[in-house]
């Protein structure tokens, strides 16, 4: 039977994630060390896991409010105001979602009408452009360059604006480049946003993971941007809680209530145990002054330095990543494309990395390597890569 005529054309037009092919290949190999992961190597801290177990035993198994448990929304409001100096009303302006991913999807479906263009800095996380298309819009890539530290520049942004542009997705700290935006960079972006009357979806999921004296600036704190920004964050990266799938979106009640309309019909609510765990994460962090986050960040930072220095010693040009947990070295000196480099590295040395092209065409020439990997394995992987680069130069 031919199913093509049953499948929605717009969805069918989006190719499957470029990461998938590598996943299939890498999964079949025995002693592969993967630098291709996109999640912490820490387990969720035990007190958080324990809080969720207790709630199951206590019979907390029901739906929660659509927008999320009120105590969790209050805790999120406290967290954002104490950590990033941005305030939201927990009753009207915060929506708890199934990971930041759902929040991005809801935001796009809320904002995008057919024909609207959404600007997406590239290279970037794989879901934005498909999300825009699923919502009926047109994604417009804005290339970010290494010479600008992979920051989105006002000039680059303005060049991509057309009369149909409705919104910008601002994904910093950035996956896959590790780029971060300083306050002055955000202020320059804000001028263009104001001038062209645009809305901003600020994906700040890596906000806790910035290094070497950098601090995360929430885009909503930039003058005039609060009312134009939907702040998206979650628990996956900062609290090592990827599998729990809890994120949130915060912004104007007029926008959040529309997102909640989709969410209540499509989803009902984020799973209760994830919400209980998230609440425990915020409470514990508040009580011990974010000790766990600091411990994990310090550990990533040491491995970040190790990885970047190892790439440079191999002769690979590597931009200094100040955010997230990825390095994005250039493999151009080997004469191979990103795909070729990763495929051969996997086959010959059993090390998995993700070709930069998985994050948009502008990722050609680079590969994404995650340093959230146990130190002993990381050292072996880097030694194998060094041998591979040597054999091919």
């Amino acid at each position, binding site marked *: 039977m031919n199913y093509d005529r049953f499948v929605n054309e717009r969805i069918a037009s989006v190719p499957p*994630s470029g*990461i998938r092919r*590598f*996943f299939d290949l*890498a*999964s079949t190999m025995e002693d*592969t060390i*993967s630098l*291709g*992961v*996109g*999640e912490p*190597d820490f387990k969720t801290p035990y007190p958080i896991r324990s809080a969720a177990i207790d709630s199951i035993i206590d019979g907390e198994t029901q739906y929660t409010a659509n927008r999320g448990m009120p105590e969790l929304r209050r805790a999120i409001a406290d967290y954002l105001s104490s950590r990033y100096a941005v305030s939201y009303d927990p009753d009207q302006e915060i929506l708890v979602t199934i990971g930041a991913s759902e929040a991005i999807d809801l935001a796009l479906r809320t904002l995008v009408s057919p024909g609207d263009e959404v600007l997406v800095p590239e290279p970037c*996380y*794989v*879901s934005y452009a498909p999300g825009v298309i699923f919502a009926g819009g047109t994604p417009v890539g804005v290339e970010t360059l290494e010479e600008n530290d992979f920051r989105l520049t006002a000039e680059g942004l303005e060049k991509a604006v057309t009369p149909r542009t409705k919104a910008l997705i601002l994904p910093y700290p950035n*996956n896959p480049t590790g780029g971060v935006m300083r306050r002055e960079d955000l202020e320059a972006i804000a001028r263009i946003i104001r001038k062209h009357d645009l809305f901003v979806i600020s994906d700040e999921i890596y906000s806790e993971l910035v290094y070497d004296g950098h601090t995360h600036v929430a885009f909503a704190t930039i003058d005039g941007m609060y009312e134009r920004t939907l702040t998206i964050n979650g628990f996956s990266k900062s609290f090592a809680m990827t599998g729990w799938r809890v994120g949130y979106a915060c912004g104007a009640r007029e926008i959040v209530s529309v997102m909640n309309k989709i969410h209540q019909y499509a989803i009902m609510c984020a799973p209760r145990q994830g919400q209980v765990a998230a609440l425990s994460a915020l409470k514990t962090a508040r009580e011990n002054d974010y000790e766990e986050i600091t411990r994990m960040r*310090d*550990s990533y930072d*040491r*491995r970040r*330095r*190790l990885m970047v*220095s190892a790439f440079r010693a191999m002769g690979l040009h590597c931009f200094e990543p100040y955010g997230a947990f990825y390095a994005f070295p250039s493999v151009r000196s080997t004469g191979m494309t990103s795909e070729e480099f990763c495929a051969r590295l996997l086959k010959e040395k059993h090390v*998995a990395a*993700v070709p930069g092209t*998985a994050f948009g065409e502008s990722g050609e020439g680079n590969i994404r390597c995650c340093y959230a990997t*146990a*130190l*002993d394995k990381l*050292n072996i992987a880097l030694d194998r890569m060094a041998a591979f680069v040597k054999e091919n130069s």
Partner: protein
Amino acid sequence: MTKLETDLLDLLKEDCRLPLEKLAVMTGASMEEVAATIDGLEKRRVILRYAPMINWDLTDRERVEAMIEVRVTPQRDMGFDAIARRIYCFDEVKSVFLMSGSYDLLVLVEARTLKELAAFVSGKLSPLETVTGTATSFVLKRYKEEGVIFDTGDSDRRLVISP
């Protein structure tokens, strides 16, 4: 303790074979600074030795371990220190701790056989003058020690590739 000292302890605790260059890169200090700091930690006896953690159950070495709760009479002027020293000098004794609670010293003992261990308790430990009582518990299985999980390993359950 300086930040560099704490960072180095964290790293060496995880893998004490990390070379100086890598320690320097990871802490952002120079190799000379790292070497001098480690030297200082050794001199101050903060770092006592660099030893591997071994899962003896996977070797063919015969081995029994026990934890012995020991009640003692503290000695005038010396408190518990003198008797603790008498006890830790035995080769069979791996660790000795002074405890709060219902007994005084916790003694971790290792021997090749049960018989040897029994001989240690009855022939060496109990006869000590100040020892007033012992309670011996044998270790049946080791699950976790010094933060390392022994029984199932600590496998990485993450997807090999994820966005």
